[in-house]
């Protein structure tokens, strides 16, 4: 009787430990970067898997070409650079945090035009076998639930990435459509204006004040 209640209490406790370890840090936000913008995220345990993605959604570029890209760096709490990407218009990233602490995710815009960046960062923690060994009441099913949760988070993260890329693609398409329409109509106007100018010039050459017998 005492054994059964102890086991039940152990199960409840293990679930409590697990729910505290269900790191749920995940965000899908957009930020406008003119020069450098940094975001800080706290990683609670050593060896946590930090994953995420970012996509540059272009501002209205009417005349110029596509933006050359954004530099992305991740700095650990000790000051070392964990990850560094240059000239990217969007990418996924994943790394295992070597130590716990405050990690810095920085976006740097080399060129003056402000860009909007959609980013998503997720810190995932799965209680591993080390914790299992410490407490014999920790049911392996809770580890499986944590793994399942992490797998679902990766699907959600991929969806957010696809959504941001689709938004960028749509932006580019709309800008292309507007630009082509504008350029075509301008071309028509230029053609009609050039031919009118031609006719007016030729008429002037033959007008009475000029003296057409000179031609």
């Amino acid at each position, binding site marked *: 009787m005492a054994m059964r209640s102890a086991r039940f209490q152990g199960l409840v406790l293990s679930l409590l430990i697990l729910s*505290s370890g269900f790191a749920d840090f995940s965000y899908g936000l957009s930020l406008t970067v003119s020069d450098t913008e940094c*975001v800080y995220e706290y990683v609670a345990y050593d060896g946590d898997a930090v994953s995420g993605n970012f996509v540059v959604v272009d501002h209205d570029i009417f005349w110029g070409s596509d933006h050359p890209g954004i530099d992305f760096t991740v700095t650990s709490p000790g000051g070392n650079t964990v990850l560094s990407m240059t000239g990217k218009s969007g990418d996924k990233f994943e790394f295992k945090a070597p130590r716990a602490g405050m990690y810095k995710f920085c976006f740097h815009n080399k060129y003056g035009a402000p860009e909007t960046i959609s980013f998503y960062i997720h810190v995932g923690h799965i209680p591993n076998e080390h914790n299992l060994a410490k407490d014999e009441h920790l049911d392996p099913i809770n580890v499986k639930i944590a793994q399942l949760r992490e797998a679902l988070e990766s699907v959600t993260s991929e*969806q957010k990435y696809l959504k941001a890329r689709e938004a960028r693609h749509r932006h580019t398409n709309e800008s292309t*459509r507007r630009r082509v329409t504008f350029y075509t109509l301008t071309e028509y106007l230029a053609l009609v204006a050039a*031919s009118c100018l031609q*006719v007016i010039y030729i008429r002037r050459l*033959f007008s009475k004040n000029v003296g057409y017998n000179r031609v």
Partner: protein
Amino acid sequence: MAIPSLALLSALVVLCLLTSPVRCLRFDLQSGQIKCISEEIKINAMTVGKYSIANPSESVPLPESHRVSIKVTSPYGESMHSAENVDSGSFAFVTKEAGDYLACFWTPEHKPAATISFEFEWKSGVTAKDWSNVAKKGQVELMEVELKKLEDVVKSIHDEMFYLRSREEEMQDMNRSTNTRMAWFGFLSLILCLSVAGLQIWHLKTFFERKKLL
């Protein structure tokens, strides 16, 4: 024998829960600067946000002047939440329109230019659901709550797939219409060129015939 170790374990768990990790994103704000964060939220979604001034060093207490002002606006410009010179706060609302919701933070000017760190947490949709009520509603086992959470996540993934599919279809329609439009423009430009040339020739012919040169 089992009971004392269980008491120790429970104390450890309580300690873990009390010092539970900070679940927020932290941003830096220069004094006098505005920082805006936007999120695209669907219609009729519950959204919850929490913000507070963060202390980067544990030992030094924060000066009183470290305050932040916030304004949350809907895609149509309606202000959903605003606060002036507070050091923490929260907001929650159900969205009436789909689109980009903007949360803008700014600080008043500080005489020696200071950088304020603030923490901001913004959850919407399935992640904003408050699970503590569901758990309290009876002897619901914790594992069942976790599995219910997973079921909600799966449902939201399913809905998101439908949304992505419909957006892709819209974009395909737009591309097809652009393609048709370009074909018409090419044809039209050829007709325009020919007609302008024809008009020129006809006009100059009648002009010269009137001037009795031809």
